[in-house]
């Protein structure tokens, strides 16, 4: 089904710089503001023709590269991704088994141990890149799983309404009330986690509720709009409607949700690993901090052991969050700085 987007007044002026854009079919991504606040006719709903799509994309990219928050955040995340991918090839030693290094040596920029060594003579840089790789694994898998569950629950509850909504909403609220981290402690204390992937899956399974709740309200308000009713009248099945009519309108929202869940999963995993409940035998950031703490790195001043992992988490997750604000401004013209 086709639906013509109504041009919103203020937005034509905003993209006046892009000459290639046909004026008749101005379309931006859906506004992510809490939906209740904007009257429906203000929101352009769907791009129709190919040129309009291209124009929208061009416009989006234009604002994306002009947005400093997005660029800075993206650079930070990409930098760490690069380090996580090529770092293991640059590391000269095994992170766990190489024990002939000097004991607790400070970082040497021209030597073989760029970030120094632990008291056992292990290479901190090698541990760091392994930890970074596992942080990405946990973030992508854990955040990804949470995003998938949150999306399915949010769509189902918001679109169907009624008893399905009641049940799913109750489930969401119950998990929201629970202190998730303490639940994780209990799970991890009794079930010994075998590796980073199971850890990520457990984290994903408990951190989805807020995403589901946010998506539910978006879906709820979208599903009462004319174009969805029209699709319903034409007899399409509900999953098709959800994916063809509703999902494209919240795609930017889904992406931003994933970024937040990605960061959250990394932070949760780091904390869980720090209390010794992470995957046994793998070197993670939390594990590094725990080892440093247990071996009195504070007292002995081995700062190179505990500073890098936490700093990396701070910059990586902070970068991801920062990117998120930038994206929000790109997708949502109202938030752009005047």
């Amino acid at each position, binding site marked *: 089904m086709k639906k013509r987007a109504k041009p919103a007044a203020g937005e034509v002026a905003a993209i006046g710089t892009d000459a290639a854009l046909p004026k008749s079919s101005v379309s931006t991504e859906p506004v992510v503001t809490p939906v209740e606040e904007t009257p429906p006719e203000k929101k352009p709903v769907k791009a129709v023709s190919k040129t309009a799509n291209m124009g929208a994309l061009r416009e989006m990219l234009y604002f994306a590269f002009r947005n400093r928050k997005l660029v800075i955040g993206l650079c930070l995340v990409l930098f760490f991704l690069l380090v996580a991918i090529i770092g293991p090839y640059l590391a000269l030693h095994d992170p766990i088994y190489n024990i002939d290094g000097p004991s607790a040596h400070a970082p040497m920029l021209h030597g073989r141990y760029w970030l120094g060594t632990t008291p056992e003579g292990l290479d901190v840089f090698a541990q760091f890149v392994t930890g970074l790789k596992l942080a990405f694994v946990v973030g992508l898998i854990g955040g990804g799983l949470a995003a998938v569950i949150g999306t399915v629950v949010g769509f189902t509850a918001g679109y169907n309404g009624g008893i399905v909504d009641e049940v799913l909403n109750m489930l969401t609220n119950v998990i929201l009330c629970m202190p998730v981290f303490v639940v994780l402690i209990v799970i991890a204390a009794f079930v*010994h986690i075998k590796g980073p992937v199971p850890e990520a899956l457990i984290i994903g399974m408990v951190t989805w509720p807020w995403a589901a709740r946010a998506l539910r309200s978006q879906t709820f308000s979208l599903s009462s709009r004319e174009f969805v009713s029209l699709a319903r009248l034409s007899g399409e099945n509900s999953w098709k409607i959800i994916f063809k009519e509703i999902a494209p309108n919240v795609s930017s929202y889904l992406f931003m949700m994933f970024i937040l869940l990605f960061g959250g999963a990394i932070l949760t995993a780091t904390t869980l690993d720090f209390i010794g409940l992470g995957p046994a035998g793998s070197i993670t950031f939390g594990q590094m901090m725990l080892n440093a703490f247990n071996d009195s790195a504070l007292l002995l001043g081995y700062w190179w052991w505990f500073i890098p992992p936490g700093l990396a988490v*701070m910059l990586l997750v902070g970068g991801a969050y920062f990117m998120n604000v930038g994206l929000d401004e790109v997708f949502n013209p109202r938030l752009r700085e005047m």
Partner: protein
Amino acid sequence: MRRYFVRKLITYGITFFSAVTIDWTIPHLMPGNPILNLLANFRIQNQETFNNLYNSYARAFRADLPLWKQYYYFWVSLFHGDLGISFSNFPTPVTLLIQRAAPYTLGLLIPAILLSWYAGNKVGAMAARRKVLDNSVLPVSYALTATPYQWFALVLAWLFAFIWQIFPIGRGYGIGVIPQWSWFFFFDLLKHWFLPFMTLFLVYFGGWAIGMRNMIIYELESDYSHYLEALGAPRRLVRKYAFRNAVLPQVTGLALQLGAVLAGALVTEIVFTYPGLGSLIYRAIINNDYFVIQGTFLLIIIGVLIANFVVDIVYVLIDPRARIGMQGGEA
């Protein structure tokens, strides 16, 4: 309004029930035998001793009864306020251990949450749509909220306790100090409290400031703000109205964040070896002290649910629409 509270209470009831069930199920139905894990710590060579110990532990866990009965007894002892006995601090009851630890955790959490919430909202609201302030507050807040608590704690401890030696760390009060009602003891307590408090305060602060800043921008861009501006209302007045509207989601946010906030307090305590619930859980994990883990979990759940309920009441009190509903009108 009554409907609202009834729904909330039902949710809390289900949450409590599921939490107790999880707390009971996980040790019982998961692969691996917790009693065997526990006995493995003792490294017993003699088979007979091992069997005897195993049986007595099985009886203590009530593992010799059918499962449904174990579950039933779990609830019964819970309502009697009996959470079992600590293995590593035998024979101290778990409730006593929690009673000793909880004041320290609450003493950290409550001031840190309230002050950071207040300061974060103020600063976030100030920063919104003000170029210079926004460009400095926003990155700092994001860095703070993306910081793992334990790392921030490690850095503060390293700087202030080891390099500059301004604050002591470890324990709730100095080693030679006797707990008593005196200024000296109070200051000693305060000195040990300050660093963990600061850690929590700063990390929480980042989150609140960002939330408020984003909410205010949404509000300032909404129709009523534009309308007010078009009428010629001063900027300050528009901001005031925006703040009032933006603060409501922040109150709800407080309830949603309680779990995460608590997790922060637990790990921060571990770094400072502050004698609260976090250190208690940490020691219990190391020693496989299952009753302590289970009991602390239950108490934390109860605490979080109570806190949630308090936030609900506060929400009703500050939201005029909900207040009108309370007084009998239709909101």
